[in-house]
């Protein structure tokens, strides 16, 4: 065997070792979710798989309500962020002026304000307007929280559109609306959809605001899972089943959108 081959095998063992160690905690819930409550504490891989825990999660708790809240909050806030952000990004990408760069930086800088700095007033505002523990309340907060990322990402995608195509369309007599509808949206749709995926991931997993602003009615999955932390909630198989369902779909989305994650979360500073 050549040294190059040996090296590749060594790198492979190391790489897979690292991957399994990082993935182990997720693997544990993936396995425990299919065990019975008695088997769950054994950490053994020999057991009869069962779907009982999943069934119980759905029957005993209002699990579907939490799923519904998570979905409503993340999907609607994502759509709202995009609806508000896309026109702004369009304006900044195609009609820039001297202030555009400053404005963009200012928008990004709002993302750098720590949530805890505004926790108290947001909590009180939500309380006094009846938005505390309500789905619309969380939607508003998540929309605003993700707006800078949405503007930024949409801006970079618009900026990549070759200007010649738009000019050609204009010469052919297309008006602004036709230009947006027939040219800009189709060419930037992949970018905008991956922006949407990133925003959905961020709001699905968001836990600072959800823990502080919701308790019963509007609680998304993050809050529901946190309720397992009290001692009487130590049911590993059910906890695992509930966690597995909460994590698996968004992980699939994350794997698809990993490139966009780098772009969106570093504000384009790393490509």
């Amino acid at each position, binding site marked *: 065997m050549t040294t190059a081959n040996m090296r*590749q095998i060594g*790198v492979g063992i190391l790489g897979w070792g690292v991957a399994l160690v990082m993935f182990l905690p997720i693997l*544990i819930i993936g396995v425990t979710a299919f065990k019975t409550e008695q088997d769950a504490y054994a950490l053994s891989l020999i057991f009869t798989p069962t779907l009982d825990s999943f069934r119980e999660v759905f029957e005993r708790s209002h699990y579907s309500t939490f799923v519904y809240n998570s979905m409503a909050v993340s999907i609607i806030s994502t759509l709202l962020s995009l609806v508000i952000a896309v026109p702004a990004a369009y304006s900044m990408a195609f009609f*820039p002026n001297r202030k555009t760069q400053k404005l963009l930086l200012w928008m990004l800088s709002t993302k750098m*304000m720590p949530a805890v700095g505004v926790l108290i007033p947001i909590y009180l505002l939500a309380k006094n307007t009846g938005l505390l523990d309500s789905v619309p309340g969380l939607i508003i907060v998540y929309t605003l929280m993700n707006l800078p990322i949405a503007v930024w990402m949409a801006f970079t995608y618009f900026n990549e559109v070759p200007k010649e195509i738009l000019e050609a369309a204009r010469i052919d007599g297309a008006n602004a609306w036709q230009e947006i509808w027939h040219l800009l949206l189709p060419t930037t749709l992949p970018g905008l959809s991956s922006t949407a995926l990133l925003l959905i991931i961020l709001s699905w*997993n968001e836990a600072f605001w959800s823990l502080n602003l919701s308790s019963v009615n509007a609680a998304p999955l993050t809050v529901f899972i946190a309720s397992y932390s009290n001692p009487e909630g130590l049911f590993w198989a059910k906890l695992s089943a509930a966690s597995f369902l909460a994590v698996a779909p968004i992980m699939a989305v994350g794997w698809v959108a990993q490139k966009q994650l780098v772009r969106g979360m570093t504000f384009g500073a790393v490509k």
Partner: protein
Amino acid sequence: MTQQTIILPTPATPIAPPAPGRKFSPAKLLLTPSVAMLGLWMIVPLVMTLYFSVIRYNLLSPDQTGFVGLDNYRYLLEDPAFWPSIGHTLVLIVSVLLISVVGGTLMAVLFDQKFPGRGIARLFVIAPFFVMPTVGALIWKNMILHPVYGLWSHLFRLVGLEPIDWLADYPLWSIIVMVAWQWTPFAFLILLTSLQSLDQEQREAAQLDGAGPVRIFIHITLPHLKRAIAVVVMIESIFLLSIFAEIFTATAGGPGTETTNLPYLVYSIGLQQFDIGIASAGGVIAVILANIVSIFLVRMLAKNLRGEYDQ
């Protein structure tokens, strides 16, 4: 050395410059909702936090009101939990940064090499970043660090050692491990992305000149990663300053106040003891800390926007 890692697009040249002298500008109109909403989102709560921090405001004694100057700050600073909480916040940020940057760099270098199944292994590595923080905290608390049933206890008993109650004996370290587990994949993903833009020819040339892997890493790879590392450090600092869910779920700030960081302290004073005034003073301090970091980040992004790194 190429500085291709960071390229921010500069705004495109206008296709149709807005007609001069026209009052009504559609471009401005499109911007207004975003600017107005972000402005409100940023300014209103911030002003309220500042205002609450200088008045007496306790939800449990609503009749006591009035301007108190810096009293709330004094009470906060005299709170026996305050300085430890600043300490915990800083230890948490610095430790997680160290673990995630060093770990992320080593893993990125490893995954920059070809090996069988690399694509799938890579998905496994980044997976923890997509786990919601409350789930992550509970997996670690119950299934890995638990003194009786946890994975570590099983392993310890297997080699004849007495299991350790991690969350009771090393609470802050337990939190650090949980948070680092989530953020190392983030650093890894960014550093790997940056690494893949490294010029292969440069590395091959160095190899031909007889440079070993360690020297290539120090003289070529690390300088190339410098900026990406700076970005990871700044972005993670901002998120790590607000770490809350892991602490809320795994330890509730305890035992005692051993895992209470600044966000948890503000939460506990404001939403558990209902002292809005003192909690707001804590919020102001968090904003100041975050600003120190974000000034550097914004300055760097501004340089990028002006295209200073575009050669």
